[in-house]
Protein backbone atom coordinates (compact mmCIF):
# COMPACT_ATOMS: atom_id res chain seq x y z
CA UNK A 1 0.00 0.00 0.00
CA UNK A 2 1.52 3.28 -1.15
CA UNK A 3 -0.20 5.96 0.92
CA UNK A 4 1.71 8.76 -0.77
CA UNK A 5 0.32 7.62 -4.10
CA UNK A 6 -3.17 7.09 -2.66
CA UNK A 7 -3.20 10.54 -1.07
CA UNK A 8 -2.14 12.15 -4.33
CA UNK A 9 -4.70 10.12 -6.26
CA UNK A 10 -7.61 11.09 -4.00
CA UNK A 11 -6.67 14.78 -4.04
CA UNK A 12 -6.38 14.73 -7.80
CA UNK A 13 -9.66 12.87 -8.27
CA UNK A 14 -11.58 15.20 -5.95
CA UNK A 15 -9.87 18.28 -7.34
CA UNK A 16 -8.50 19.18 -3.92
CA UNK A 17 -5.93 21.63 -5.18
CA UNK A 18 -3.26 23.38 -3.14
CA UNK A 19 -5.26 26.61 -3.48
CA UNK A 20 -8.31 24.90 -2.01
CA UNK A 21 -6.27 23.43 0.83
CA UNK A 22 -4.92 26.88 1.61
CA UNK A 23 -8.42 28.36 1.52
CA UNK A 24 -9.63 25.65 3.91
CA UNK A 25 -6.86 26.50 6.33
CA UNK A 26 -7.71 30.20 6.03
CA UNK A 27 -11.38 29.76 6.86
CA UNK A 28 -10.64 27.24 9.62
CA UNK A 29 -10.74 29.79 12.46
CA UNK A 30 -14.14 31.02 11.23
CA UNK A 31 -15.61 27.52 11.14
CA UNK A 32 -14.13 25.97 14.28
CA UNK A 33 -16.65 27.55 16.72
CA UNK A 34 -19.51 25.92 14.79
CA UNK A 35 -18.07 22.42 14.66
CA UNK A 36 -19.10 21.22 18.16
CA UNK A 37 -22.73 22.01 17.32
CA UNK A 38 -22.42 20.12 14.05
CA UNK A 39 -21.00 17.10 15.89
CA UNK A 40 -23.87 17.29 18.37
CA UNK A 41 -26.40 17.47 15.53
CA UNK A 42 -24.71 14.55 13.81
CA UNK A 43 -25.03 12.27 16.84
CA UNK A 44 -28.60 13.36 17.47
CA UNK A 45 -29.26 12.43 13.86
CA UNK A 46 -27.50 9.06 14.22
CA UNK A 47 -29.35 8.20 17.42
CA UNK A 48 -32.61 8.48 15.48
CA UNK A 49 -31.46 5.81 13.01
CA UNK A 50 -32.19 2.33 14.36
CA UNK A 51 -29.42 0.60 12.43
CA UNK A 52 -26.87 3.12 13.68
CA UNK A 53 -27.79 3.04 17.37
CA UNK A 54 -26.24 -0.38 17.89
CA UNK A 55 -22.82 1.10 17.11
CA UNK A 56 -23.27 3.98 19.52
CA UNK A 57 -24.64 2.49 22.72
CA UNK A 58 -22.50 3.36 25.70
CA UNK A 59 -19.92 5.12 23.55
CA UNK A 60 -21.58 8.31 22.43
CA UNK A 61 -19.42 10.72 24.44
CA UNK A 62 -16.11 9.20 23.38
CA UNK A 63 -17.28 8.94 19.77
CA UNK A 64 -18.34 12.59 19.81
CA UNK A 65 -14.89 13.60 20.96
CA UNK A 66 -13.20 11.51 18.27
CA UNK A 67 -15.57 12.89 15.67
CA UNK A 68 -15.00 16.50 16.66
CA UNK A 69 -11.24 15.95 16.64
CA UNK A 70 -11.45 14.64 13.08
CA UNK A 71 -13.82 17.37 11.91
CA UNK A 72 -11.59 20.05 13.41
CA UNK A 73 -8.50 18.48 11.92
CA UNK A 74 -9.92 19.04 8.45
CA UNK A 75 -9.56 22.77 8.99
CA UNK A 76 -6.46 22.88 11.17
CA UNK A 77 -4.08 20.18 9.93
CA UNK A 78 -2.20 19.69 6.72
CA UNK A 79 -3.88 17.09 4.55
CA UNK A 80 -0.55 15.38 4.08
CA UNK A 81 0.45 11.74 3.90
CA UNK A 82 0.26 11.41 7.70
CA UNK A 83 -3.33 12.63 7.59
CA UNK A 84 -4.11 10.13 4.85
CA UNK A 85 -2.43 7.35 6.84
CA UNK A 86 -4.48 8.22 9.91
CA UNK A 87 -7.73 8.24 7.96
CA UNK A 88 -6.76 4.95 6.33
CA UNK A 89 -6.24 3.50 9.79
CA UNK A 90 -9.65 4.78 10.89
CA UNK A 91 -11.19 2.98 7.92
CA UNK A 92 -9.47 -0.25 8.97
CA UNK A 93 -10.81 0.16 12.51
CA UNK A 94 -14.31 0.74 11.12
CA UNK A 95 -14.06 -2.54 9.22
CA UNK A 96 -12.78 -4.33 12.33
CA UNK A 97 -15.81 -3.18 14.36
CA UNK A 98 -18.01 -4.03 11.34
CA UNK A 99 -19.29 -0.51 10.82
CA UNK A 100 -21.03 -0.61 7.44
CA UNK A 101 -19.33 1.33 4.65
CA UNK A 102 -22.55 3.13 3.78
CA UNK A 103 -22.47 4.81 7.21
CA UNK A 104 -19.44 6.79 6.08
CA UNK A 105 -21.22 7.99 2.95
CA UNK A 106 -24.27 8.96 4.99
CA UNK A 107 -22.16 10.72 7.59
CA UNK A 108 -20.17 12.71 5.05
CA UNK A 109 -23.38 13.76 3.30
CA UNK A 110 -24.95 14.92 6.56
CA UNK A 111 -21.87 16.85 7.67
CA UNK A 112 -21.40 18.41 4.27
CA UNK A 113 -24.97 19.65 4.37
CA UNK A 114 -24.53 21.14 7.84
CA UNK A 115 -21.32 22.88 6.84
CA UNK A 116 -23.00 24.40 3.80
CA UNK A 117 -25.40 26.11 6.20
CA UNK A 118 -22.53 27.56 8.20
CA UNK A 119 -20.58 28.63 5.14
CA UNK A 120 -23.56 30.36 3.59
CA UNK A 121 -24.21 32.08 6.91
CA UNK A 122 -20.59 33.25 7.16
CA UNK A 123 -19.84 34.18 3.56
CA UNK A 124 -23.23 34.58 1.96
CA UNK A 125 -22.66 38.25 1.32
CA UNK A 126 -19.56 37.55 -0.79
CA UNK A 127 -20.67 35.36 -3.68
CA UNK A 128 -17.16 34.81 -5.06
CA UNK A 129 -15.77 33.69 -1.71
CA UNK A 130 -18.87 31.63 -1.02
CA UNK A 131 -18.44 29.76 -4.29
CA UNK A 132 -14.74 29.15 -3.65
CA UNK A 133 -15.35 27.92 -0.10
CA UNK A 134 -18.21 25.63 -1.13
CA UNK A 135 -16.07 24.13 -3.88
CA UNK A 136 -13.15 23.67 -1.48
CA UNK A 137 -15.34 21.98 1.13
CA UNK A 138 -16.91 19.79 -1.52
CA UNK A 139 -13.45 18.63 -2.58
CA UNK A 140 -12.43 18.20 1.05
CA UNK A 141 -15.32 15.90 1.91
CA UNK A 142 -15.00 14.01 -1.36
CA UNK A 143 -11.33 13.46 -0.59
CA UNK A 144 -12.12 12.13 2.89
CA UNK A 145 -14.84 9.88 1.53
CA UNK A 146 -12.62 8.48 -1.20
CA UNK A 147 -9.80 7.77 1.23
CA UNK A 148 -12.20 5.97 3.55
CA UNK A 149 -13.67 3.96 0.69
CA UNK A 150 -10.24 2.82 -0.42
CA UNK A 151 -9.37 1.89 3.14
CA UNK A 152 -12.63 -0.03 3.51
CA UNK A 153 -12.02 -1.91 0.27
CA UNK A 154 -8.55 -2.98 1.25
CA UNK A 155 -9.42 -3.76 4.86
CA UNK A 156 -12.46 -5.81 3.88
CA UNK A 157 -10.48 -7.87 1.40
CA UNK A 158 -7.76 -8.39 4.01
CA UNK A 159 -10.30 -9.37 6.66
CA UNK A 160 -12.12 -11.75 4.32
CA UNK A 161 -8.86 -13.35 3.23
CA UNK A 162 -7.80 -13.81 6.86
CA UNK A 163 -11.14 -15.46 7.59
CA UNK A 164 -10.83 -17.72 4.55
CA UNK A 165 -7.30 -18.78 5.49
CA UNK A 166 -8.39 -19.39 9.07
CA UNK A 167 -11.27 -21.61 7.96
CA UNK A 168 -9.29 -23.59 5.38
CA UNK A 169 -6.10 -23.87 7.41
CA UNK A 170 -4.12 -22.51 4.46
CA UNK A 171 -1.13 -20.53 5.76
CA UNK A 172 -0.30 -17.01 4.60
CA UNK A 173 2.94 -18.35 3.19
CA UNK A 174 1.16 -21.02 1.17
CA UNK A 175 -1.32 -18.44 -0.07
CA UNK A 176 1.54 -16.15 -1.12
CA UNK A 177 3.18 -19.04 -2.96
CA UNK A 178 -0.10 -19.80 -4.73
CA UNK A 179 -0.42 -16.18 -5.80
CA UNK A 180 3.19 -16.17 -7.01
CA UNK A 181 2.61 -19.36 -8.99
CA UNK A 182 -0.44 -17.92 -10.71
CA UNK A 183 1.06 -14.46 -11.20
CA UNK A 184 3.96 -16.15 -12.96
CA UNK A 185 1.47 -18.05 -15.13
CA UNK A 186 -0.31 -14.84 -16.01
CA UNK A 187 2.85 -13.07 -17.11
CA UNK A 188 4.32 -15.93 -19.15
Amino acid sequence: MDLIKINRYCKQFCDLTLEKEQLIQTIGPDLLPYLPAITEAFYTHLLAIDDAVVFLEGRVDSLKKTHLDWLSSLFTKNLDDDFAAHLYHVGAVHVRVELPADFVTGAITFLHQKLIHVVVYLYGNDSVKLLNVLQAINSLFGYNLQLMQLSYQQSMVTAELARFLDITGISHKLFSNMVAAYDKQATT
Partner: protein
Amino acid sequence: MRSEMLSSILSDLNGSSADIEASAVLSTDGLMIASMLPSGMDEDRVGAMSAAMLSLGDRTSEELARGALEQVLIKGDHGYILMTHAGKDAVITVLAKPNARLGLIFLDVRRAAENIAKII
Protein backbone atom coordinates in the same frame (compact mmCIF):
# COMPACT_ATOMS: atom_id res chain seq x y z
CA MET B 1 22.44 -35.30 -2.05
CA ARG B 2 19.00 -34.98 -0.49
CA SER B 3 17.59 -33.90 -3.81
CA GLU B 4 19.05 -36.97 -5.51
CA MET B 5 17.62 -39.24 -2.82
CA LEU B 6 14.19 -37.70 -3.20
CA SER B 7 14.37 -38.00 -6.97
CA SER B 8 15.36 -41.63 -6.56
CA ILE B 9 12.34 -42.29 -4.34
CA LEU B 10 10.05 -40.65 -6.87
CA SER B 11 11.65 -42.58 -9.69
CA ASP B 12 11.11 -45.86 -7.83
CA LEU B 13 7.54 -44.87 -7.08
CA ASN B 14 6.76 -44.01 -10.70
CA GLY B 15 8.34 -47.30 -11.73
CA SER B 16 6.41 -49.34 -9.19
CA SER B 17 3.19 -49.13 -11.19
CA ALA B 18 2.42 -48.45 -14.81
CA ASP B 19 -0.65 -46.61 -13.52
CA ILE B 20 1.45 -43.86 -11.93
CA GLU B 21 2.11 -41.09 -14.43
CA ALA B 22 3.90 -38.51 -12.30
CA SER B 23 4.83 -37.62 -8.75
CA ALA B 24 6.27 -34.76 -6.76
CA VAL B 25 7.42 -33.81 -3.28
CA LEU B 26 6.69 -30.35 -2.01
CA SER B 27 6.73 -28.39 1.20
CA THR B 28 3.53 -27.77 3.12
CA ASP B 29 4.00 -24.13 2.04
CA GLY B 30 3.55 -25.27 -1.54
CA LEU B 31 7.15 -25.04 -2.76
CA MET B 32 8.44 -27.82 -4.99
CA ILE B 33 11.24 -29.92 -3.50
CA ALA B 34 11.58 -32.68 -6.08
CA SER B 35 9.42 -33.74 -8.99
CA MET B 36 8.95 -36.13 -11.86
CA LEU B 37 6.18 -34.36 -13.70
CA PRO B 38 5.16 -34.36 -17.36
CA SER B 39 6.74 -31.61 -19.41
CA GLY B 40 4.48 -28.60 -19.66
CA MET B 41 3.05 -29.07 -16.19
CA ASP B 42 3.97 -26.08 -14.05
CA GLU B 43 5.81 -27.15 -10.90
CA ASP B 44 4.88 -24.04 -8.90
CA ARG B 45 1.20 -24.51 -9.67
CA VAL B 46 1.29 -28.21 -8.83
CA GLY B 47 3.10 -27.45 -5.59
CA ALA B 48 0.80 -24.66 -4.46
CA MET B 49 -2.41 -26.43 -5.43
CA SER B 50 -1.38 -29.75 -3.83
CA ALA B 51 -0.38 -28.13 -0.55
CA ALA B 52 -3.61 -26.13 -0.50
CA MET B 53 -5.70 -29.24 -1.14
CA LEU B 54 -3.93 -31.14 1.60
CA SER B 55 -4.36 -28.24 3.99
CA LEU B 56 -8.06 -28.12 3.20
CA GLY B 57 -8.22 -31.90 3.58
CA ASP B 58 -6.64 -31.64 7.01
CA ARG B 59 -9.21 -29.10 8.08
CA THR B 60 -12.13 -30.99 6.53
CA SER B 61 -11.17 -34.27 8.16
CA GLU B 62 -10.86 -32.53 11.51
CA GLU B 63 -14.09 -30.58 11.08
CA LEU B 64 -16.10 -33.67 10.08
CA ALA B 65 -14.63 -35.77 12.89
CA ARG B 66 -12.70 -38.16 10.60
CA GLY B 67 -9.51 -37.95 12.63
CA ALA B 68 -6.03 -37.20 11.35
CA LEU B 69 -5.86 -36.90 7.57
CA GLU B 70 -4.28 -39.81 5.72
CA GLN B 71 -4.73 -38.72 2.15
CA VAL B 72 -6.68 -36.61 -0.31
CA LEU B 73 -7.91 -38.30 -3.47
CA ILE B 74 -9.30 -36.44 -6.44
CA LYS B 75 -10.72 -38.14 -9.52
CA GLY B 76 -11.10 -36.43 -12.87
CA ASP B 77 -11.95 -37.62 -16.35
CA HIS B 78 -8.29 -38.16 -17.06
CA GLY B 79 -7.27 -39.86 -13.86
CA TYR B 80 -6.50 -39.51 -10.17
CA ILE B 81 -4.55 -37.08 -8.03
CA LEU B 82 -3.44 -38.50 -4.71
CA MET B 83 -1.90 -36.33 -2.01
CA THR B 84 -0.59 -37.38 1.35
CA HIS B 85 1.71 -36.03 4.04
CA ALA B 86 5.34 -37.12 3.94
CA GLY B 87 6.29 -36.18 7.48
CA LYS B 88 4.97 -32.97 8.98
CA ASP B 89 6.70 -30.57 6.60
CA ALA B 90 6.25 -32.22 3.20
CA VAL B 91 3.57 -33.47 0.86
CA ILE B 92 3.74 -36.12 -1.84
CA THR B 93 1.48 -35.78 -4.86
CA VAL B 94 0.91 -38.59 -7.34
CA LEU B 95 -0.91 -38.49 -10.67
CA ALA B 96 -2.41 -41.80 -11.81
CA LYS B 97 -4.35 -43.11 -14.79
CA PRO B 98 -8.17 -43.24 -14.75
CA ASN B 99 -8.30 -47.01 -14.50
CA ALA B 100 -5.51 -47.28 -11.93
CA ARG B 101 -5.66 -49.98 -9.25
CA LEU B 102 -5.71 -47.69 -6.27
CA GLY B 103 -5.06 -50.26 -3.54
CA LEU B 104 -1.56 -50.95 -4.80
CA ILE B 105 -0.86 -47.29 -5.40
CA PHE B 106 -1.94 -46.40 -1.87
CA LEU B 107 0.59 -48.87 -0.51
CA ASP B 108 3.41 -47.67 -2.75
CA VAL B 109 2.71 -44.03 -1.99
CA ARG B 110 2.57 -44.67 1.74
CA ARG B 111 5.94 -46.42 1.58
CA ALA B 112 7.42 -43.58 -0.47
CA ALA B 113 6.01 -41.01 1.98
CA GLU B 114 7.66 -42.79 4.89
CA ASN B 115 11.00 -42.81 3.08
CA ILE B 116 10.68 -39.13 2.18
CA ALA B 117 9.83 -38.24 5.78
CA LYS B 118 13.08 -39.83 6.91
CA ILE B 119 15.06 -37.63 4.54
CA ILE B 120 13.31 -34.29 5.05
